[in-house]
């Protein structure tokens, strides 16, 4: 199981602008559900609160009000039921790829040969079995993010939370990793909630796209593309893809200020 529920999640913080205290509403009563095994994309313009929502779901930040539950259990902090993939991978630069994956497992209490074997298993899953002894700066951006994904998956979380995981990569590497993520999802059936600002990525990968505007839920768009989505090039050219993409585009622009 791995169902994530956000119920009326709000986040306010105080900001001092030119000496005056302003209350900023980063999130305003945001509610949505990610069902077990589902991939949900969280999309919206910069500053709409999508990353804040993800960080609250991870337990890295606390909500001002409202609640996040994973399989009915309230989130009060970080936990091994959730694995986080960071925007720039955020590998520890002094550790090798293998040690980076082992780090999470060690925190979970794994020791001995199981530690090495499990880490190797997940690095193999992301196609990095040959580069395990390299340090992050000896890896390309795409390889770094593969390690980041392996590190999060290795602790066997119920839910994978990803913060613009491919946003910093070049277009070709991004497409490769998108396909790999779909492949990993097909094999592991993990629930995935990911933040993106890339319309195509949201529609290609997700079952449903949660569109946010100004900290609020704008619309939840279902993606009717069937799984498995093996041939991404073909999907990109399909009418269904174009229609869904246009639908999400409209939702993204519905709340935006119009230009005159």
């Amino acid at each position: 199981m791995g169902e994530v529920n956000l119920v009326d999640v709000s986040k306010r913080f105080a900001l001092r602008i030119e000496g005056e205290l302003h209350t900023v509403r980063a999130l305003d009563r945001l509610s949505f559900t990610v069902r077990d095994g589902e991939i949900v994309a969280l999309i919206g313009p910069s500053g709409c609160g999508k990353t804040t929502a993800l960080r609250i779901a991870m337990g890295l930040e606390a909500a001002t009000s409202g609640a996040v539950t994973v399989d009915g259990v309230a989130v009060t902090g970080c936990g091994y039921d959730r694995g986080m993939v960071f925007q720039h991978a955020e590998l520890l630069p002094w550790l090798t790829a293998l040690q980076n994956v082992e780090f999470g497992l060690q925190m979970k209490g794994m020791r001995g040969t199981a530690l090495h074997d499990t880490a190797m298993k997940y690095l193999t899953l992301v196609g990095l079995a040959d580069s395990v002894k390299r340090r992050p700066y000896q890896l390309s951006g795409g390889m770094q993010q593969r390690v980041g994904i392996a590190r999060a998956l290795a602790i066997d979380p119920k839910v994978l939370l990803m913060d613009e995981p491919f946003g910093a990569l070049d277009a070709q590497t991004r497409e490769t990793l998108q396909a790999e993520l779909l492949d990993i999802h097909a094999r592991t059936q993990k629930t995935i909630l990911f933040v993106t600002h890339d319309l195509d990525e949201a529609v290609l990968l997700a079952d449903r796209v949660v569109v946010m505007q100004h900290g609020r839920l704008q619309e939840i768009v279902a993606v009717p593309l069937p799984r498995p989505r093996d041939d991404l090039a073909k999907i990109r050219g399909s009418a269904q893809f174009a229609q869904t993409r246009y639908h999400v585009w409209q939702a993204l622009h519905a709340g935006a200020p119009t230009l005159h």
Partner: protein
Amino acid sequence: MVDIVDRESAADEAAGAAPGRHGVPRLAVTAASLVVILVLWEILGRHINPIFGAPPSAIFAAFVDLVRNGKLAAALAQSLQPFVVGYGVAIAVGVPLGLIIGRFWVAEAALGILVTGGYAMPLVALVPLLILWFGLGFAVKAAVIFLMSIFPICINTWLGVKSVPKTLIDVGKSFVAPDAVILRRIVLPATLPYIMAGIRLAVGRAVVGMVIAEFFTQISGLGGIIINAANNFDTATMFVPIILLMVMAVGLNALIGRFERLVAPWQDEIAGRDRD
């Protein structure tokens, strides 16, 4: 897949002769600079009264004398003992203290001001008081060296902790790492370059502290040779320990640099800096 490891082997080759941008080895530039300075010094030094200055040749002669009669070796041993203790304890105390001040706001609020103030403490003025506390011998010398060198080490470590990317701490938190583990396995390695910079800066201050202590407490060691020679207007002999200390500081600096590359080999990859 692009093999980025090639860059590292290239950097390793560069470490030895280190050709600069125009193909001239780094060491050659440094050596040429030293030769020019020594030659100028020699020419000027021969034309002035030996009380006001000594040319390198006279200093070298004085150096040979001091080595022959064993005074230099004895003084060096005398100086190095409090130096090693004072500087060593400063590292052992300054690094953990800096880590704690940087990581915990209570410690920062309570101790930060003392460390910042302590860095600017006019230590020479406090030497008479330190003599009352520690006497005139080994202890007071180690104490002066300790007080001179702990602050740059502590402040650098503290600043280093402050500059650890928040996202790396988030990585630790997301795997439910306890505070102590985050401090040891994330903050400490991320801070290492700053710690090493502090330890390097402290070499110079520790050397100054050592000479101050030897001047103002019981006259001994290399500082003792300096002050005795100066009192006898033997300028050439006075310069021997001064230059020796400078050479030793440069050597120690290079040694710490080597050590840093050993314990933090990833740092060169991140910063892409020249190896010195």
